[in-house]
Each structure stands twice: as structure tokens, then as C-alpha cells.
């Protein structure tokens, strides 16, 4: 098939396998919500229903693939907030940032709330998360998710992320920014076409504003995770490189024990800071999940 991502073949390893991965369906993946139930109590309930489960990664009892489940949202366990359907790589973002108990956290673009609630879980329901979402129509699903999952340590605000007020600084910031979403693409049918939109070209400008404001909102030694679900280097390395050129920032390694590629150092005419090697690119043929980019940034 003529491939829209052919232009990335120079840096995506094993490109034929990458293309092949996009032909299959995205497997159902969910997170067990420790704010409401333990894996020991939940797993028997799901297994009683004949759901075939596979642990997503070693050392984490909350992340599972459900191989024979089409619609996890139709389970009673979903309604009761025991599980949250969430792409595996999306779950890795909260784990990469890993805010500790009692932390003060900002989620700059929080809806629909999967990562916000995951961070609440990692914080054991302590501390405080400011879950920011500009659009009121997206604040509704955000609020619903947080309520269903029993998140009590979050407040919702409605600022433009790039203009979030500079009143106080945060220990941890998640900047899961609006992106072109290339990583979510799967060729679902012959009639399905990936479309380039004019909006995509405007995204890096917005992303650079958000990453700068996020960095300025960090406390000293505070950490920010910049994340997108796209392969486009202009939205990934290009944005983080812009931050490194304009602020006293460094990158930290991302070591989750999951197969990933480092950030790239060159794309077309652009050369990026060597720090970008510490960023992580997650590809669907390695993780069987959504493509993701993450950079863990620290304020010196």
C-alpha cells in the first residue's frame, strides 16, 4: 500500500515491520485502578467472565492486554471504576513522570483524564493535581473519568495551556500536548485514509509555546514530561530542541524496561541537541500499541 509514513523510513527501524503493525487492530489494553480495587480482587472477576488477560510489562500488576475483549467499556468493572481502557504507551507516560506521594502536579492538557487518574494512582491519592483543559466540552469527559475512577486529589481548570497563570510552581508537569496523532493511526479498512490537515503545520508553534510555559511553571529540580502520540520530528524533537535552546533545561533518561528508540538528532535540514538521545520513541511494531514520543525534562 502507498504509505503516508514512508517519509519516516529513514529513522523508523525495521520499517516493513512498522508498516505491517499498522495493518492489524489495536489490541484492547486497560489499567487496573488501584484507587478502587486491587489486582488480587479484580483479576478473578474478569477471569470468571472468560476474559483472557496478559500482563503488559514485568514489575507492574496494573497493566493488562485483554486478548478476547472487544469493548471493555461494556463491563460492569468499567462502570464501577475498577478498570480504565488506556493504550499501553499512554500508561507509560504517567510512569515515566512518576510523581511521588504528596506532589503538586499540573496536567496541562488533561482531557479525557486517563493520565491524570493514573498519576493520582501513582501518588496514592495524595498531593494535588491541577487537571487543566481549555474546552468546556472536553472538561465534561475529564470530570466523568475522574469521578468514575474515584480521583479525589484533583481540581479542574480551564486555561489555555500556553497561558497557564504563573501564580505558583509545580513539582511535576505533564505536557501531553495536542498533536497530529499519527501514532494512533491504524489502517482499519481500505476506505480509511490518513489525512494531512493544515492544522498539523500549525501544531509545532503551539507545542513550543506550551513546553516553554510548562517549563517556566516548574519548581527548581522539578520535572516535566513532554509527550505526543505522533512520529513527526517537528512536533517532537523539534519542540524539545527549541526548549533546550531557550531555557536552562536538561533531559533525563526514560528507563521503563520497555523496548524503545532514542530521539533522533537530525531530520531533513534540522539538527537537534544531543540531549535528545535521552528522549524515547515508542513504535507500534515494538509495543503493539499507539506510537508515542516522550522527553523527560528537568529544570536545573
Amino acid at each position: 500500500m502507498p504509505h503516508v509514513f514512508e517519509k519516516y523510513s529513514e529513522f523508523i527501524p525495521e520499517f516493513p515491520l512498522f508498516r505491517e503493525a499498522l495493518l492489524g487492530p489495536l489490541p484492547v489494553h486497560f489499567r487496573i485502578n488501584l484507587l478502587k480495587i486491587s489486582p488480587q480482587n479484580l483479576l478473578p472477576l474478569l477471569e470468571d467472565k472468560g476474559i483472557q488477560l496478559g500482563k503488559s510489562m514485568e514489575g507492574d500488576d496494573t497493566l493488562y492486554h485483554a486478548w478476547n475483549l472487544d469493548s471493555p467499556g461494556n463491563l460492569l468493572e468499567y462502570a464501577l471504576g475498577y478498570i480504565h481502557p488506556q493504550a499501553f504507551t499512554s500508561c507509560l507516560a504517567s510512569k515515566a513522570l512518576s510523581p511521588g506521594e504528596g506532589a503538586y502536579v499540573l496536567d496541562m492538557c488533561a482531557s479525557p483524564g486517563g493520565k491524570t487518574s493514573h498519576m493520582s494512582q501513582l501518588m496514592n491519592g495524595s498531593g494535588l493535581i491541577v487537571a487543566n483543559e481549555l474546552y468546556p466540552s472536553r472538561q465534561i469527559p475529564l470530570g466523568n473519568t475522574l469521578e468514575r475512577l474515584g480521583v479525589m486529589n484533583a481540581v479542574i481548570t480551564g486555561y489555555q495551556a500556553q497561558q497557564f497563570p504563573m501564580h505558583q510552581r509545580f513539582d511535576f508537569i505533564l505536557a501531553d500536548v495536542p498533536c497530529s496523532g499519527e501514532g494512533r493511526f491504524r489502517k482499519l479498512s481500505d476506505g480509511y485514509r490518513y489525512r494531512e490537515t493544515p492544522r498539523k503545520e500549525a501544531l509545532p508553534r503551539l507545542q513550543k509555546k506550551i513546553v516553554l510555559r510548562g517549563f517556566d511553571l516548574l519548581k527548581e529540580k522539578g520535572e516535566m514530561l513532554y509527550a505526543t502520540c505522533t512520529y513527526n520530528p517537528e512536533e517532537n524533537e523539534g519542540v524539545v530542541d527549541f526548549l533546550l535552546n531557550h531555557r536552562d533545561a536538561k533531559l533525563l533518561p526514560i528507563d521503563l524496561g520497555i523496548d524503545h528508540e532514542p530521539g533522533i538528532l537530525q531530520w531533513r535540514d534540522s539538527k537537534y541537541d544531543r540531549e535528545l538521545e535521552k528522549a524515547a520513541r515508542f513504535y507500534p511494531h515494538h509495543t503493539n500499541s499507539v506510537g508515542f514520543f516522550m522527553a523527560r525534562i528537568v529544570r536545573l
Partner: protein
Amino acid sequence: MVRSFPEGVPVARLKVTKVGLKAFRQVGSFVKPTTHLIQIFGHAATKSRFRITKDALLKLHSGRDLHVPDDMEKGYVILELEQGQILGLGFVNKGSLRSQIPRKEIKKLMLETESPGTVPSDTHPGRITD
């Protein structure tokens, strides 16, 4: 929650649209805990818990009442399934129990998935755990 921040209330200067989890609402003369609050803390309750079968839940979900002993005190009870899942509240009055769980949250489909092929019983009164 905010007391744990020694530098003061961190969000005091932000325009906040929603705070935490709604815990209670006033319903007539009762202060009623919300379903989400009950789902989190209900397991800690030592009384007023009412255990029901999946069939009984299906019946409640369809809008019908369950028969309960006439001497049960009027008021709210915590509904839980036989495997311990806390569902939300029911309201007992004069020998019948009515679900207070918002129907939009638990869809009928979820219950049918739970017990395929079963028919709600008219006679099952549920079981009181305390």
C-alpha cells in the same frame, strides 16, 4: 487535602471549575452520599450493607423494587454484589428497596454480560450482610 501544602492553598489563585469528588447532596430530609463516594468508602461501612445477586441488580436496574423484610429501618443502604463489588445506594421504605444508582452509569448491557441468559427473579429478596 490542601492542608498538606505548607506554602498555603496552592490553587487559591486559580479559577477552578471542579474540585475533587462530590461527596454528598441534600435529598429532602436526608444527606445522601453520592454513588462515587459510596463506591470508594462503602466497604468500610459496618452496617446498612445489603448484598444482592446479579439477578436482583438487573431487576432493580429495570426500575422495579425488591421486597425486603418489613422491619427494615427506613433509609439508605449500601448495595453490594455477592463478590463484594460496592455498587451504590438503595433506599428502603416499608418493605421494599429501590435502587438509587444512576441508570446512565450502569448500562443494562453490563448486567446482561454479567449473567447471560438469566431472568430477573421476582422473589429474591437479596441478603443482608449486617
